[in-house]
């Protein structure tokens, strides 16, 4: 086992509502595929309203690469296709049958398959879309070989799910998944785990992999931070990554020939009455999960994903493709009289101008839980302060300079400052502490998209 990689910068926000180790299987009748979950994908529909689909049937493909199919996780009927501005497809809603039927993808022995066969099976089953690449966080081009593949084995984000619990009993699927990945690259397969949290043998006993152990506060679980420490990305390099739970789904496909897109998600957050885990299929409607389990007397925000990077959904919205959390926090749409001058014993802040800011000097176990809501706590201002972002960004990157390069759309400068090494999520904490209330993640995302289009990828 390798040495522990210590991540020295970052911050763990302590809030209430972490899921307890209890799992239920709710009855969900509505599912949706959301093309906006996938970066850089223009969907081309393969179904129309009223069509029947099985689990594993293609629903749409990517205009950018026709081989990349997006499949249904459930058998049922296409209920509606919701379109937004410029008729862009927002949601393809499927109402589920009571009995799950599966497309058959065969159970050929993996050992006898060539890379081409493995890729084809993944593309056809739609499970190719579970893999993403750096830079850009897009679904990778199957014709390219990555220099290595990272398996995300822990989540350091606020109220992140416990992977020991998510992966329980999935040893065989995970190992088979690793063997599949082995066919896709001649580089290493990295299993990235937490040095302090990860205890499960499902990950630690995997074979033909390199296990990397990370210690430190969030964003220690972010792929960029991990890559920077194990195999830094250079211009032209491609690294793939996949979540451990998704890897098990790929393993299962090769074991059973079926697309069983089932995963465990956690319902978390201060406004959840009983935070716990749920077994659901991809794209499940969250209404039956959150119903009667949130403080409905308050104005709430439902988030698919964590509170730093997740997507806002409604209380009957759908789970995002890559998310394993539903976070619920209070909306902060209130005025606060002279709020900018209060001593702030209860407010969340990393700034020591608030009394609560001093508590953040303590290790996270001793801290009191922070009370958060979605209020911006101020107006948008010019970028004035310096040296703040650096405290929460454990990368060898000059954040202010990179942000400004993205704003002025200077591609050469973005490259030089290391845009390929980052993703928008790495700047989430910078965005949280920013006194000028700039939407930094959006700026970085725009910068990445600009480069991606410029490169023709």
């Amino acid at each position, binding site marked *: 086992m390798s040495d522990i990689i210590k991540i020295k910068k970052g911050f763990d926000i302590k809030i209430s509502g972490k899921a307890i180790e209890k799992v239920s299987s709710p009855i969900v009748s509505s599912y949706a595929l959301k093309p906006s979950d996938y970066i850089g994908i223009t969907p081309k529909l393969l179904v129309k309203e009223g069509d029947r689909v099985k689990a594993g049937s293609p629903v749409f493909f990517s205009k950018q690469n026709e081989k990349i199919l997006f499949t249904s996780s459930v058998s049922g009927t296409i209920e509606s296709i919701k379109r937004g501005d410029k008729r862009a497809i927002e949601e393809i809603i499927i109402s589920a049958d009571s009995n799950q039927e599966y497309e058959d993808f065969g159970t050929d022995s993996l050992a006898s398959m060539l890379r081409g066969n493995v890729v084809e099976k993944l593309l056809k089953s739609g499970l190719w879309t579970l893999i993403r690449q750096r830079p850009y966080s897009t679904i990778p081009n199957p014709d390219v070989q990555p220099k290595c593949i990272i398996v995300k084995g822990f989540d350091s984000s606020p109220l992140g799910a416990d992977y020991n619990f998510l992966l329980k009993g999935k040893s065989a699927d995970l190992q088979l998944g690793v063997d599949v990945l082995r066919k896709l690259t001649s580089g290493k397969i990295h299993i990235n785990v937490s040095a302090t949290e990860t205890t499960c043998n499902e990950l630690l006993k995997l074979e033909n992999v390199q296990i990397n152990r990370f210690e430190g506060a969030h964003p220690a679980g972010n792929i960029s931070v991990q890559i920077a420490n194990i195999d830094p990305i*250079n*211009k*032209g*390099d491609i690294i793939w990554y996949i979540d451990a739970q998704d890897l098990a789904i790929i393993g299962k496909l090769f074991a059973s020939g079926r697309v069983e897109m089932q995963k465990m998600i956690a319902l978390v957050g201060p406004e959840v009455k009983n935070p716990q885990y749920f077994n659901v299929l991809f794209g499940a409607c969250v209404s039956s999960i959150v119903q009667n389990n949130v403080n409905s007397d308050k104005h709430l925000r439902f988030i698919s994903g964590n*509170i*730093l990077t*997740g997507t*806002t959904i409604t209380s009957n919205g759908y789970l995002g493709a890559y998310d394993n959390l539903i976070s619920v926090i209070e*909306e*902060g749409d209130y*005025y*606060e*009289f*002279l*709020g*900018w*001058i209060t001593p*702030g014993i209860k*407010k*969340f*802040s*990393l*700034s*020591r*101008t*608030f009394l609560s*800011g001093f508590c953040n000097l303590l290790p996270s176990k001793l801290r009191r839980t922070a009370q*958060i*809501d*979605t*209020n*911006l*706590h*101020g*107006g*948008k*201002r*010019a970028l*004035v302060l*310096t*040296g703040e972002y*650096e405290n929460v960004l454990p990368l060898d*990157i*000059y954040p202010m*300079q990179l942000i400004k390069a993205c704003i002025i759309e200077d591609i050469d400068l973005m490259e*030089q*400052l*290391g845009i390929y090494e980052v993703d*928008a999520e790495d700047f*989430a*904490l910078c965005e*949280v*502490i*920013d*006194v*000028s*209330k700039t*939407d*930094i*993640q959006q700026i970085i995302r725009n910068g990445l998209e600009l480069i991606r289009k410029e490169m023709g990828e």
Partner: protein
Amino acid sequence: MKFVRDFLDKIKPNFEKGGKFPWLHSTFDAFETFAFVPKTTTTSGAHFRDAMDMKRTMTMVILALMPALLFGTYNIGFQHFHSINPELSFFEGFWDNLLYGAIKILPIIVISYVVGLSIEFGFAQWRKHDVNEGFLVTGMLIPLVMPPDVPLWQVALATAFAVVIGKEVFGGTGMNFLNPALLARAFLFFAFPSSMSGDNVWIAEKADAFSGATPLAEMMIGANLPSTSFWDMLLGIMPGSIGETSSIAILLGAAFLLITGIGSWRIMLSVFMGGALMGLTFNLFGSNPYTQIPFYYHYVMGGFMFGAVFMATDPVTAAQTNKGKWIYGILIGVMAVLIRVVNPAYPEGMMLAILLLNVFAPLIDYYVVDANIRKRMKRWKIKGGQNVQ
């Protein structure tokens, strides 16, 4: 506070587009957000945000300036009565001193804020921005670096110059490269030298018989040591710019800025290191009396302390990278002492040292960031040369 909120909600439509006074929108917004933190919620990225905002940041700096302001106010009065009656001890006539000082300083503060904020509000409205809070600090810094006898019209002129030429022409808050408050002072120093130098300006309505020379002026003309004792200089019982005399008061402010994490400890520490470095170097090689004074005398004379704590640390005009801050700070300390000791034309080197390094800060940052870029390019070349154009 509901009635305030109700009142604001009632008059708000007048300042929106299509209302009666849309041209006052920025002004209304500035006052509304002063009273209430807005109810705006996050729409992109992280769903929750730190409670810290720009208003609080700037308010904290103003709080940090309070000890220097209060001491300065008292000292104006004391220096005035002391020049008339040199026997006067420091706490004699406490209320008279304070009252006299307040009468002298309040008009300067009012002029600085009224002129500066009017221009800021005007530009914010013109650019359709919210009003940035930066001037709240600048507006307080300007009076504190003025001599107590400065004519008010000159304060108005200098403030207008600093805000328009120093800040707005470059795009406003966050875009300026010179510290506006120091620019105001430099403007007066070069445009109206008689109001900013000599022995007569540092004590308000000084009695003619009293010398009134500042320690810096005494050193300039070749004294072995200033006639004011080190402890008096540390406490600030001497003639000088309004807020600059008391090192103790300034250090209280510095402690506040460092505890709250608003001021950059790297810059403060490195300015003092730079001052010490140059002072000690002069001690080794110097020949005239000015080169021989202990380096810590430089800290307590003139504007060194005030500059190090409140001026050099302005995040917009300082170096922005952490490494750059060290270089920037050390060079300010070195230049300040160098200009004081070597250049006979300017008794106060701190103002010029900071303005000079403000100009060079982007260059320092450029090389710090360039080192990072070179490191990255080197790694790219080693790993996959063909990928690099």
